[in-house]
């Protein structure tokens, strides 16, 4: 059994909220609750981490990127814990693991031109030995992503469109050529018509450069377009995972089913049937209940057991895990 590229073992993250800058309060919020999954090293894959806001997906991204420390559990990259990487081989870690963030505007420091991001990257990762070489690399990478260097270089972030800014991030990725991209909602803030173009780049990075990607999103439409496998997150817990085709064509967990039926289909003939009852969706309690299944408050199949105990994540079918009492026999 080879060492996986990325492994999360029982990752939990608890935030303290409340007074005294959070150090004197006892109210906590468990953003991530015992999450475990792996990404293989033998072949490049795109794994979609799907969840709505509050699911903990961004927190997981930050922990993988070393921007946040888990409260408990381990994140292993190529078998070594991320904290070890950061302590001893920080530069090497970031040469292999890089993010793509959601908001195309705030990823740039508005006071500087956009080239600065690239120049800084080249300098810090020692990707070029001279300024000419650096320029050459930048121009090549830009062309590969479909951006025109003569139009964009030397400009400020606000002078580019959202789609261009987001694609510019891909230029940075192409320069570094990481082994793993952690993409946090990379297309949710650009026009729908531009999303496919961006996602195609992720696919080509996988196919041509062997780059794996953890694609974090709340949108199953785009997840189905790029992902090889899907992990569904709800309130900080994994509720289902498996290959993308199977999870979408045969969803097991009621939450996955809800997500799928709520997708707007671009066909007026396929409108949503019944109306969704919004009152069951929203809970005033921002701090979720400690016991029971994470979804029981919104689940049409919830039983008393669901309210009392949290269902374990079990392999209901080969290669497919689900955390739901409907599937425990």
């Amino acid at each position: 059994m080879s060492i996986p590229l990325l492994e999360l073992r029982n990752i939990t993250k608890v935030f303290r909220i409340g007074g005294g800058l959070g150090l004197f309060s006892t109210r906590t919020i468990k953003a991530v609750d015992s999450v475990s999954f792996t990404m293989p090293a033998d072949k490049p894959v795109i794994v979609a981490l799907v969840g709505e806001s509050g699911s903990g997906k961004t927190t997981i991204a930050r922990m993988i990127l070393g921007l946040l420390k888990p409260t408990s559990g381990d994140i292993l990259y190529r078998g070594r814990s991320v904290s070890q990487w950061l302590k001893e081989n920080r530069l090497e870690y970031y040469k292999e693991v890089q993010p793509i963030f959601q908001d195309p505007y705030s990823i740039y420091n508005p006071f500087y031109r956009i080239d600065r991001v690239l120049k800084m990257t080249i300098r810090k990762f020692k990707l070029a030995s001279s300024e000419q070489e650096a320029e050459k690399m930048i121009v090549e990478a830009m062309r590969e992503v479909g951006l025109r260097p003569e139009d964009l270089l030397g400009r400020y972030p606000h002078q580019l469109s959202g789609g261009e800014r987001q694609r510019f991030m891909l230029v940075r990725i192409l320069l570094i050529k990481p082994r793993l991209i952690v993409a946090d909602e990379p297309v949710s803030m650009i026009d729908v018509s531009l999303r496919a173009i961006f996602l195609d780049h992720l696919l080509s990075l996988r196919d041509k450069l062997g780059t794996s990607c953890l694609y974090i999103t709340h949108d199953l439409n785009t997840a189905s377009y790029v992902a090889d496998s899907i992990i569904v997150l709800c309130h900080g817990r994994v509720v289902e995972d498996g290959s993308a085709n199977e999870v979408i064509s045969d969803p097991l967990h009621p939450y996955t089913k809800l997500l799928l039926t709520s997708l707007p289909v671009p066909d007026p003939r396929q409108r949503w049937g019944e109306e969704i009852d919004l009152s069951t969706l929203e809970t005033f309690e921002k701090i979720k209940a400690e016991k029971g299944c994470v979804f029981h408050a919104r689940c049409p199949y919830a039983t008393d057991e669901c309210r009392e105990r949290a269902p374990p994540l079990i392999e209901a079918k080969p290669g497919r895990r689900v955390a739901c009492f409907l599937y425990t026999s």
Partner: protein
Amino acid sequence: MKFKVEASGLRDKLSSFLATAKGSKRFVTGLMLLFVIAGLAVFEPVINAVRLGGRKPVEIGLFERGLPPSLEHPLGTDMLGRDVLALVLVGLRYSLMVGMMAGGIATIIGMVLGISSSYLGGRIDVVLNSITNGILILPTLPLLMAIVAYVRMDMLLVSLTLAVFTWPWSARTIRAQVLSLKERPYIMLAKVTNLSDLEIVFKELLVGLIPYIVASFSFSVIGTIMAETALRMIGLGPAEIPTLGFLLGWAMTYGALAQGFYTLVLAPAVLLVLIFVALNLVNTGLDEVFNPRLKKITGL
């Protein structure tokens, strides 16, 4: 084709800032007023040397006592035979020196503590923030009075003392801004590009703090001059540092108003107000300059 991959944004940001700044009447007015005031203060030795023929302005009995305003003495003379204009110019110079030194020290302390506190977060933030808030709650004036009354002061010490009570304002403003900036994705991007914390603070954060630093500095200058004036009105503070406040305090003590030496009281007061007005105009003008620009930049 040679592409401009040069990424030094600051120079161009400065020139485009100046271009936009010209549009803000407040900023321009305030700045011009400041230049005039500062000019007077800077050239005071020259002006006074020329007008008084090399004699010191504080020298008693240079001229006739109690002369009304005239061409030779635009603000008249006081009861000790000193030219009021000369006195006021000296006072302006010292006021500005103390204000800028104290304001500068306060701003620097505020910056260092404000940035470290919010950027490093955690316990350091709690401790530093509590100290900052603690000093804010302290009754500044009585403490200042106590210190100044009992300790022999020179310019530096006066500035330091005043600064110690003024830095919390800068620290709070800057801390708040850093807290908002440090969660921005571009900071996170800098971290994953392996920039060290110091590099991030200096290269990424500082640039976004400039308007707040300038604002802090203006407030600190105003605050320290006001505090100094307050102390002077009660008669405290070193006499070797004849600030406008000193002049005012001295004039009130000697009953200048009652005796009809209006200029002696009005001139320092008006100048003090002008300093505050100029600094405030620059401050609010900067706000006008930065905010509509931001709106134009982001608000599409």
